[in-house]
Protein backbone atom coordinates (compact mmCIF):
# COMPACT_ATOMS: atom_id res chain seq x y z
CA UNK A 1 0.00 0.00 0.00
CA UNK A 2 2.85 2.34 0.90
CA UNK A 3 4.77 1.53 -2.31
CA UNK A 4 1.65 2.06 -4.35
CA UNK A 5 1.28 5.58 -2.94
CA UNK A 6 4.89 6.43 -3.76
CA UNK A 7 4.47 5.14 -7.30
CA UNK A 8 1.33 7.17 -7.79
CA UNK A 9 3.04 10.29 -6.51
CA UNK A 10 6.00 9.83 -8.85
CA UNK A 11 3.76 9.38 -11.87
CA UNK A 12 1.72 12.45 -10.94
CA UNK A 13 4.90 14.51 -10.68
CA UNK A 14 6.10 13.30 -14.08
CA UNK A 15 2.76 14.18 -15.62
CA UNK A 16 2.65 17.68 -14.24
CA UNK A 17 6.17 19.12 -14.36
CA UNK A 18 7.16 19.02 -18.07
CA UNK A 19 3.95 20.67 -19.20
CA UNK A 20 5.18 23.90 -17.64
CA UNK A 21 8.18 24.04 -19.96
CA UNK A 22 8.39 26.39 -22.89
CA UNK A 23 11.48 25.68 -24.87
CA UNK A 24 13.05 24.74 -28.14
CA UNK A 25 13.01 21.21 -26.86
CA UNK A 26 10.34 19.81 -24.67
CA UNK A 27 9.95 16.44 -23.06
CA UNK A 28 6.44 15.51 -22.03
CA UNK A 29 5.74 12.48 -19.90
CA UNK A 30 2.08 11.68 -20.03
CA UNK A 31 -0.55 13.51 -21.97
CA UNK A 32 -0.01 16.73 -23.87
CA UNK A 33 1.83 18.07 -26.89
CA UNK A 34 5.51 18.98 -27.12
CA UNK A 35 6.44 22.35 -28.59
CA UNK A 36 9.74 23.87 -29.74
CA UNK A 37 10.30 27.34 -31.12
CA UNK A 38 12.67 28.76 -33.71
CA UNK A 39 13.40 32.43 -34.36
CA UNK A 40 13.90 33.96 -37.78
CA UNK A 41 15.62 37.17 -38.76
CA UNK A 42 15.90 38.73 -42.22
CA UNK A 43 18.14 41.78 -42.52
CA UNK A 44 17.32 44.08 -45.45
CA UNK A 45 19.65 47.05 -45.98
CA UNK A 46 18.52 50.40 -47.32
CA UNK A 47 18.84 50.40 -51.11
CA UNK A 48 18.73 53.35 -53.53
CA UNK A 49 19.46 52.96 -57.22
CA UNK A 50 19.29 55.32 -60.17
CA UNK A 51 20.35 54.30 -63.65
CA UNK A 52 20.24 56.66 -66.64
CA UNK A 53 21.24 55.16 -69.94
CA UNK A 54 23.22 51.93 -70.17
CA UNK A 55 23.39 51.58 -66.39
CA UNK A 56 19.62 51.40 -66.13
CA UNK A 57 19.59 47.95 -67.66
CA UNK A 58 22.03 46.39 -65.21
CA UNK A 59 20.56 43.39 -63.40
CA UNK A 60 20.91 42.96 -60.52
CA UNK A 61 21.08 46.60 -59.60
CA UNK A 62 24.69 47.72 -59.59
CA UNK A 63 26.95 50.66 -60.12
CA UNK A 64 27.96 51.27 -63.75
CA UNK A 65 30.59 53.77 -64.79
CA UNK A 66 29.57 54.30 -68.43
CA UNK A 67 28.16 57.77 -69.15
CA UNK A 68 26.04 57.79 -72.27
CA UNK A 69 26.00 60.58 -74.86
CA UNK A 70 23.00 62.16 -76.56
CA UNK A 71 23.97 63.82 -79.85
CA UNK A 72 22.05 66.21 -82.10
CA UNK A 73 24.09 66.61 -85.28
CA UNK A 74 23.21 69.26 -87.89
CA UNK A 75 26.16 68.48 -90.14
CA UNK A 76 23.80 66.96 -92.68
CA UNK A 77 21.26 69.82 -92.59
CA UNK A 78 23.15 73.03 -91.71
CA UNK A 79 20.41 75.18 -93.18
CA UNK A 80 18.02 73.99 -90.49
CA UNK A 81 20.03 75.48 -87.61
CA UNK A 82 17.85 77.90 -85.68
CA UNK A 83 14.65 76.90 -87.47
CA UNK A 84 13.22 74.58 -84.86
CA UNK A 85 13.68 71.57 -87.12
CA UNK A 86 15.19 68.37 -85.87
CA UNK A 87 18.82 67.50 -86.46
CA UNK A 88 19.67 65.36 -89.45
CA UNK A 89 21.36 62.81 -87.21
CA UNK A 90 20.28 62.12 -83.66
CA UNK A 91 21.84 59.37 -81.56
CA UNK A 92 21.27 58.17 -78.04
CA UNK A 93 18.29 60.41 -77.34
CA UNK A 94 16.00 57.61 -76.15
CA UNK A 95 17.42 56.89 -72.73
CA UNK A 96 16.31 54.02 -70.48
CA UNK A 97 15.93 55.07 -66.87
CA UNK A 98 15.31 53.03 -63.75
CA UNK A 99 14.92 54.11 -60.18
CA UNK A 100 14.66 51.76 -57.22
CA UNK A 101 14.48 52.47 -53.51
CA UNK A 102 13.18 50.74 -50.41
CA UNK A 103 12.91 53.43 -47.79
CA UNK A 104 10.29 55.96 -48.77
CA UNK A 105 9.55 58.70 -51.25
CA UNK A 106 12.32 59.34 -53.75
CA UNK A 107 13.00 62.64 -55.43
CA UNK A 108 14.97 63.03 -58.65
CA UNK A 109 16.66 66.32 -59.38
CA UNK A 110 18.86 67.37 -62.25
CA UNK A 111 21.80 69.72 -62.06
CA UNK A 112 23.52 71.14 -65.11
CA UNK A 113 25.51 74.19 -66.17
CA UNK A 114 23.63 77.06 -67.75
CA UNK A 115 25.03 76.30 -71.18
CA UNK A 116 26.49 73.71 -73.45
CA UNK A 117 29.79 75.16 -74.55
CA UNK A 118 32.06 75.15 -77.55
CA UNK A 119 35.07 77.21 -76.66
CA UNK A 120 33.66 80.60 -75.86
CA UNK A 121 30.36 79.96 -77.61
CA UNK A 122 27.38 78.48 -75.88
CA UNK A 123 23.88 77.16 -76.23
CA UNK A 124 21.47 77.36 -73.30
CA UNK A 125 20.88 73.97 -71.70
CA UNK A 126 17.18 74.76 -71.67
CA UNK A 127 17.23 74.21 -75.45
CA UNK A 128 17.16 70.52 -74.53
CA UNK A 129 13.84 69.13 -73.36
CA UNK A 130 12.68 65.64 -72.47
CA UNK A 131 9.50 63.62 -72.16
CA UNK A 132 8.99 60.34 -70.31
CA UNK A 133 7.32 57.22 -71.64
CA UNK A 134 5.73 56.96 -68.18
CA UNK A 135 5.20 60.58 -67.22
CA UNK A 136 2.81 59.56 -64.46
CA UNK A 137 5.16 57.34 -62.51
CA UNK A 138 8.63 58.44 -63.58
CA UNK A 139 8.58 61.98 -64.91
CA UNK A 140 11.67 63.76 -66.18
CA UNK A 141 13.02 66.72 -64.22
CA UNK A 142 13.42 69.59 -66.67
CA UNK A 143 16.74 71.42 -67.00
CA UNK A 144 16.46 74.36 -64.68
CA UNK A 145 13.24 72.91 -63.30
CA UNK A 146 12.07 71.42 -60.04
CA UNK A 147 12.76 67.90 -58.77
CA UNK A 148 10.21 65.19 -59.56
CA UNK A 149 8.81 62.47 -57.28
CA UNK A 150 8.46 59.01 -58.81
CA UNK A 151 5.29 57.31 -57.65
CA UNK A 152 5.78 54.73 -54.91
CA UNK A 153 4.83 51.19 -55.92
CA UNK A 154 3.95 50.27 -52.35
CA UNK A 155 4.56 51.83 -49.01
CA UNK A 156 8.21 52.93 -49.11
CA UNK A 157 9.11 50.81 -52.17
CA UNK A 158 9.78 52.44 -55.54
CA UNK A 159 10.68 50.47 -58.64
CA UNK A 160 10.00 52.44 -61.83
CA UNK A 161 11.37 52.22 -65.32
CA UNK A 162 10.77 54.41 -68.35
CA UNK A 163 12.41 55.84 -71.43
CA UNK A 164 13.25 59.51 -71.40
CA UNK A 165 13.32 60.94 -74.92
CA UNK A 166 15.38 64.10 -75.38
CA UNK A 167 14.85 66.77 -78.04
CA UNK A 168 16.82 69.82 -79.08
CA UNK A 169 14.58 72.87 -79.50
CA UNK A 170 16.90 74.44 -82.12
CA UNK A 171 15.45 77.88 -81.51
CA UNK A 172 18.75 79.78 -81.44
CA UNK A 173 21.19 80.74 -84.16
CA UNK A 174 24.28 79.16 -82.73
CA UNK A 175 27.83 79.70 -83.92
CA UNK A 176 29.37 76.67 -85.58
CA UNK A 177 30.96 74.26 -83.18
CA UNK A 178 30.58 71.10 -81.15
CA UNK A 179 28.81 71.98 -77.94
CA UNK A 180 29.16 69.73 -74.93
CA UNK A 181 27.53 69.66 -71.56
CA UNK A 182 26.74 67.18 -68.84
CA UNK A 183 23.66 66.81 -66.68
CA UNK A 184 23.74 64.96 -63.37
CA UNK A 185 20.57 63.30 -62.12
CA UNK A 186 20.39 62.73 -58.40
CA UNK A 187 17.96 60.51 -56.54
CA UNK A 188 17.42 61.13 -52.86
CA UNK A 189 15.45 59.10 -50.36
CA UNK A 190 14.79 59.34 -46.63
Amino acid at each position, binding site marked *: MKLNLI*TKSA*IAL*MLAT*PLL*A*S*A*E*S*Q*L*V*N*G*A*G*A*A*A*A*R*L*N*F*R*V*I*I*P*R*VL*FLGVGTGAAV*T*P*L*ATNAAIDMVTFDYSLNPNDVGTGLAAGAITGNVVPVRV*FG*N*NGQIQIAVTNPANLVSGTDNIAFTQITAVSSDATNLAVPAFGGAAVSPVL*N*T*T*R*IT*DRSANWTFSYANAVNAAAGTYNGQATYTATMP
Partner: protein
Amino acid sequence: MAESVRLNGSGSATPRLNFRVIISQELFLGVGTGATINPRGNNATIDTVTFDYTTAPNAVGTGAAAPVITGNVVPVRVYCNRGQITLTATHPVNLTSGANTIPFTQILVTSSSLNLPAPAMGGLPLFPSMNGASGTTNRSATWTYRYLNTVNAVGGIYTGQVTYTASML
Protein backbone atom coordinates in the same frame (compact mmCIF):
# COMPACT_ATOMS: atom_id res chain seq x y z
CA MET B 1 1.02 -16.07 -2.18
CA ALA B 2 4.05 -14.95 -0.19
CA GLU B 3 7.63 -13.83 -0.37
CA SER B 4 8.74 -16.69 1.85
CA VAL B 5 7.58 -20.21 2.35
CA ARG B 6 8.47 -22.25 5.28
CA LEU B 7 8.25 -25.99 4.95
CA ASN B 8 8.39 -28.37 7.71
CA GLY B 9 9.31 -31.72 6.37
CA SER B 10 9.67 -32.76 2.75
CA GLY B 11 8.72 -30.69 -0.28
CA SER B 12 9.90 -27.58 -2.10
CA ALA B 13 9.70 -24.05 -0.97
CA THR B 14 8.35 -21.81 -3.72
CA PRO B 15 8.30 -18.19 -2.77
CA ARG B 16 7.16 -16.00 -5.64
CA LEU B 17 8.30 -12.57 -6.76
CA ASN B 18 6.39 -10.19 -8.95
CA PHE B 19 8.03 -7.81 -11.41
CA ARG B 20 6.69 -4.61 -12.89
CA VAL B 21 8.29 -2.24 -15.39
CA ILE B 22 6.53 1.08 -15.70
CA ILE B 23 7.09 2.94 -18.98
CA SER B 24 5.51 6.33 -18.93
CA GLN B 25 4.04 7.81 -22.06
CA GLU B 26 6.68 10.11 -23.51
CA LEU B 27 6.72 12.73 -26.22
CA PHE B 28 9.80 14.75 -27.11
CA LEU B 29 10.44 17.40 -29.71
CA GLY B 30 13.70 19.26 -30.13
CA VAL B 31 14.36 21.89 -32.79
CA GLY B 32 17.84 23.31 -32.87
CA THR B 33 20.25 23.00 -29.98
CA GLY B 34 17.72 21.11 -27.88
CA ALA B 35 17.51 18.31 -30.41
CA THR B 36 20.95 17.06 -29.47
CA ILE B 37 20.31 16.72 -25.76
CA ASN B 38 21.00 13.24 -24.44
CA PRO B 39 19.10 12.04 -22.54
CA ARG B 40 16.06 13.81 -23.88
CA GLY B 41 15.06 16.79 -21.81
CA ASN B 42 13.80 20.33 -21.78
CA ASN B 43 16.00 23.08 -23.17
CA ALA B 44 15.15 26.75 -22.98
CA THR B 45 17.42 28.04 -25.76
CA ILE B 46 15.57 29.24 -28.84
CA ASP B 47 17.84 29.26 -31.87
CA THR B 48 17.78 31.99 -34.51
CA VAL B 49 18.04 31.59 -38.27
CA THR B 50 19.41 34.74 -39.93
CA PHE B 51 19.45 35.83 -43.58
CA ASP B 52 21.59 38.97 -43.86
CA TYR B 53 21.72 41.05 -47.05
CA THR B 54 23.79 43.86 -45.54
CA THR B 55 26.77 43.21 -47.78
CA ALA B 56 24.68 42.57 -50.92
CA PRO B 57 21.93 45.18 -50.99
CA ASN B 58 21.60 44.81 -54.75
CA ALA B 59 20.44 41.23 -54.31
CA VAL B 60 17.32 42.16 -52.35
CA GLY B 61 14.22 41.01 -54.19
CA THR B 62 16.13 39.15 -56.91
CA GLY B 63 15.75 35.63 -55.55
CA ALA B 64 19.45 35.42 -54.80
CA ALA B 65 20.58 33.91 -51.53
CA ALA B 66 21.77 36.15 -48.73
CA PRO B 67 25.57 36.46 -48.59
CA VAL B 68 25.52 35.79 -44.88
CA ILE B 69 23.28 33.04 -43.55
CA THR B 70 23.62 31.66 -40.06
CA GLY B 71 21.81 28.92 -38.20
CA ASN B 72 19.77 27.73 -41.15
CA VAL B 73 20.73 24.05 -40.83
CA VAL B 74 18.74 22.97 -37.83
CA PRO B 75 18.92 19.57 -36.13
CA VAL B 76 15.53 18.16 -35.23
CA ARG B 77 14.54 15.13 -33.22
CA VAL B 78 11.16 13.74 -32.34
CA TYR B 79 10.48 10.82 -30.05
CA CYS B 80 7.25 9.20 -28.98
CA ASN B 81 6.38 5.83 -27.57
CA ARG B 82 2.67 5.80 -28.09
CA GLY B 83 1.59 5.85 -31.69
CA GLN B 84 1.53 8.24 -34.58
CA ILE B 85 2.71 11.83 -34.12
CA THR B 86 1.57 14.90 -35.98
CA LEU B 87 3.90 17.83 -36.42
CA THR B 88 2.63 21.34 -37.05
CA ALA B 89 4.19 24.77 -37.51
CA THR B 90 2.40 27.86 -36.25
CA HIS B 91 3.59 31.38 -36.88
CA PRO B 92 2.30 34.88 -37.54
CA VAL B 93 1.49 35.87 -41.10
CA ASN B 94 4.56 38.08 -41.40
CA LEU B 95 8.00 38.73 -40.12
CA THR B 96 7.95 42.34 -38.99
CA SER B 97 10.25 45.33 -38.77
CA GLY B 98 8.23 48.07 -37.17
CA ALA B 99 5.28 48.60 -39.47
CA ASN B 100 6.96 46.84 -42.38
CA THR B 101 6.46 43.18 -43.14
CA ILE B 102 7.75 40.18 -45.07
CA PRO B 103 5.42 37.19 -45.45
CA PHE B 104 6.52 34.16 -43.45
CA THR B 105 5.94 32.13 -46.60
CA GLN B 106 9.14 33.68 -47.97
CA ILE B 107 10.93 31.18 -45.74
CA LEU B 108 11.14 27.67 -47.14
CA VAL B 109 12.38 24.52 -45.49
CA THR B 110 13.53 21.10 -46.61
CA SER B 111 14.34 18.03 -44.55
CA SER B 112 17.29 15.68 -44.87
CA SER B 113 14.98 12.74 -44.14
CA LEU B 114 11.69 11.61 -45.60
CA ASN B 115 10.96 10.05 -42.22
CA LEU B 116 10.92 13.44 -40.57
CA PRO B 117 9.56 15.98 -43.06
CA ALA B 118 9.41 19.65 -42.16
CA PRO B 119 5.99 21.29 -42.11
CA ALA B 120 5.97 24.26 -44.46
CA MET B 121 5.15 27.76 -43.30
CA GLY B 122 1.43 28.06 -43.80
CA GLY B 123 1.26 24.37 -44.68
CA LEU B 124 -0.50 21.31 -43.33
CA PRO B 125 0.56 19.13 -40.39
CA LEU B 126 2.94 16.32 -41.28
CA PHE B 127 3.41 12.82 -39.92
CA PRO B 128 6.86 11.52 -39.03
CA SER B 129 7.01 7.84 -39.88
CA MET B 130 6.97 5.39 -37.01
CA ASN B 131 10.01 3.16 -36.61
CA GLY B 132 8.01 -0.04 -36.43
CA ALA B 133 4.75 -1.64 -35.56
CA SER B 134 5.51 -1.04 -31.89
CA GLY B 135 4.11 2.45 -32.12
CA THR B 136 7.42 4.11 -31.34
CA THR B 137 8.73 7.07 -33.27
CA ASN B 138 12.37 8.03 -32.95
CA ARG B 139 13.43 10.20 -35.86
CA SER B 140 16.21 12.72 -36.37
CA ALA B 141 16.95 14.96 -39.33
CA THR B 142 18.31 18.34 -40.23
CA TRP B 143 15.92 20.94 -41.54
CA THR B 144 17.50 23.48 -43.89
CA TYR B 145 15.89 26.89 -44.24
CA ARG B 146 16.24 29.39 -47.06
CA TYR B 147 14.84 32.80 -47.78
CA LEU B 148 12.96 33.04 -51.07
CA ASN B 149 13.83 36.74 -51.58
CA THR B 150 11.18 37.54 -54.17
CA VAL B 151 9.79 40.64 -52.49
CA ASN B 152 11.19 44.14 -52.53
CA ALA B 153 11.36 44.66 -48.83
CA VAL B 154 11.80 47.97 -47.07
CA GLY B 155 15.14 48.30 -45.31
CA GLY B 156 15.04 46.91 -41.80
CA ILE B 157 15.61 43.93 -39.52
CA TYR B 158 12.64 41.61 -39.75
CA THR B 159 11.98 39.10 -37.01
CA GLY B 160 9.46 36.34 -36.42
CA GLN B 161 9.07 33.12 -34.50
CA VAL B 162 7.65 29.77 -35.48
CA THR B 163 6.45 27.22 -32.96
CA TYR B 164 6.59 23.56 -33.88
CA THR B 165 4.21 21.33 -32.02
CA ALA B 166 4.29 17.55 -31.83
CA SER B 167 1.04 15.87 -30.83
CA MET B 168 0.07 12.27 -30.36
CA LEU B 169 -3.02 11.10 -32.17
